[in-house]
């Protein structure tokens, strides 16, 4: 035994180090992905006998108007969430100075990201509240009539996205602040001597150097947009009339709420969401893979 161990230690050691983490990850993350795919072919209430119905859940999804709303909202989320990348860059540039107290300013600007999305949702619900909410009052002051954003099916999704952008911009900002901190000063000085400044400097000299920060900012923003659940749940529960649903929330609603325990149908929605996210995830992994193997 001990001779075997001595001879093969280097070969066995990585697997022993990996075992606990890998087993946990396989049981709780990898296996469930495939189980969900399997469940999506069943009609199942979570307790009784599951009944194989083939692709019937997917056929139903294709004609489900709630699915269309959720899907449309996800696209709006994704598109508008991308605003956090330029907005975060703008604030980072604004704060990238060395004046007294700037560290504290940077920390306070970062604040929204540290707070739970549940709290962010409540803060913005208060901000939008009809009758006395601050934004409601401001709109009333300028136009004469206030707008109850979270009760208006046409505006509600935008209202929730605005709440989501708040912490997301803070996150992107901190990524860019770190990036700006590491921009090569000699290149900036050289470009300055060549007469580059303002936008041209930003576009041709700074942004190329901020590439790694931009990559991560885009990754976390895409994932954040498609994962949006907390804010929808807290601020509107998908309402009014289901108009602010997104796929992640609609899935939860079908599988685990008063609307019934339709695990199979819920799993089918999750598989669709997973498929959409896999497109992006494969892109990220492909890029990371290239970086790793090039080294």
């Amino acid at each position, binding site marked *: 035994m001990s001779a075997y161990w001595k001879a093969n230690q280097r070969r066995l*050691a990585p697997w022993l180090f990996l075992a606990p983490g890998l087993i946990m*990850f396989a049981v709780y993350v990898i296996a469930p992905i495939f189980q969900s795919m399997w469940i999506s072919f069943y009609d199942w209430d979570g307790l009784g006998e599951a009944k194989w119905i083939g692709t019937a859940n997917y056929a139903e999804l294709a004609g489900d108007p709630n699915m269309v709303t959720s899907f449309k909202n996800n696209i709006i989320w994704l598109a508008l969430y991308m605003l956090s990348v330029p907005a975060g860059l703008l604030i980072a540039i604004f704060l990238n100075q060395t004046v007294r107290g700037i560290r504290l300013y940077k920390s306070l600007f970062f604040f929204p990201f540290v707070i*739970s999305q549940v709290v962010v949702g*409540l*803060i913005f619900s208060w901000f939008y509240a009809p009758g006395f909410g601050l934004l409601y009052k401001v709109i009333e002051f300028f136009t004469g009539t206030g707008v109850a954003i979270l009760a208006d099916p046409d505006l509600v999704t935008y209202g929730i996205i605005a709440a989501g952008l708040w912490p997301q911009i803070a996150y992107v900002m901190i990524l860019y602040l770190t990036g700006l901190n590491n921009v090569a000063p000699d290149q900036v000085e050289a470009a300055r001597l060549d007469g580059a400044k303002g936008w041209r400097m930003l576009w041709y000299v700074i942004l190329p150097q901020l590439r790694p920060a931009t990559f991560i900012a885009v990754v976390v923003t895409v994932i954040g947009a498609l994962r949006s659940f907390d804010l929808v749940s807290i601020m509107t529960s998908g309402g009014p009339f289901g108009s602010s649903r997104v796929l992640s929330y609609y899935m939860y609603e079908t599988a685990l709420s008063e609307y019934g325990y339709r695990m199979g149908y819920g799993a089918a929605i999750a598989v669709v969401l997973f498929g959409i996210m896999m497109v992006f995830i494969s892109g*990220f992994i492909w890029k990371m893979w290239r970086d790793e193997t090039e080294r």
Partner: protein
Amino acid sequence: MFPRPIQQTSAATQWLYRLALPVALLLWLFPLLGVAVTSVRPAADLAQGNYFGIPSYLAFENYADVFRNTPMAKYIVNSFVVTIPTVIGAVALSLMTGFALAIYKFKANLLIFFMFVAGNFVPFQILMVPVRDLTLDLGMYNTWYGLALFHIAFQTGFCTLFMRNFIKALPFELIEAARVEGVTEWRIFWYIVLPLMRPAIAALSVLIFTFIWNDFFWATVLTTSPETQPITAGLSSLNGQWVAAWHLVSAGSILAALPPVAMFFLMQKHFIAGLTLGAVK
């Protein structure tokens, strides 16, 4: 440095910048400040329509009310009970996985590494039904350890990415020298690599603490009663009961936000180092 240091600009611009900073900050944090003020506004003010003026007095009784009439204290304890073991578990597991993936060359290395990375990005919903089922089958539904076990497993993905890259940046000669001396692999891990990991452990701990404290989705899926619910789920159910009692909602929100905010301010350097990993190359 970009943009041009403000010190090199005209006096007027410098003056304008100093003025713009606090104004911008005030606008940025306005919703938060509003809620903070509402949390100490007496209920009577709200009833009389004094929503924005100076509170007639500082009503810390709102906080006392929250603690007296709701299980808030229990929710806070529950959050700590789930969060702390998760931090310890995820950091411990990922130190080992990160070590294995950074130090050893074997065929499946990159494949396993990218599996951890990719798993970290999947939508929670694809895991929801099976994980809930598994937790029920294990008899761990609505317990702190049922929730913590899932969190440990899931966070191991992100933590492995972090630890592996950190260990990879350490000087490999250290390990080679030890191997020449005949030090066993476990001792290399324990006595050589681990002591160098302190900054990484600190950074990951604050990050995971914040992530788990703020988790809402899994708290709603895996816990149901005030005996086990963490504060995010608790706050959400209280919000349903306190219809438009905004002074209480605000006080509850501030309470829920405090621990991660305190953590962030105490460990700022580590927090940002963890979050911006990979933002520079």
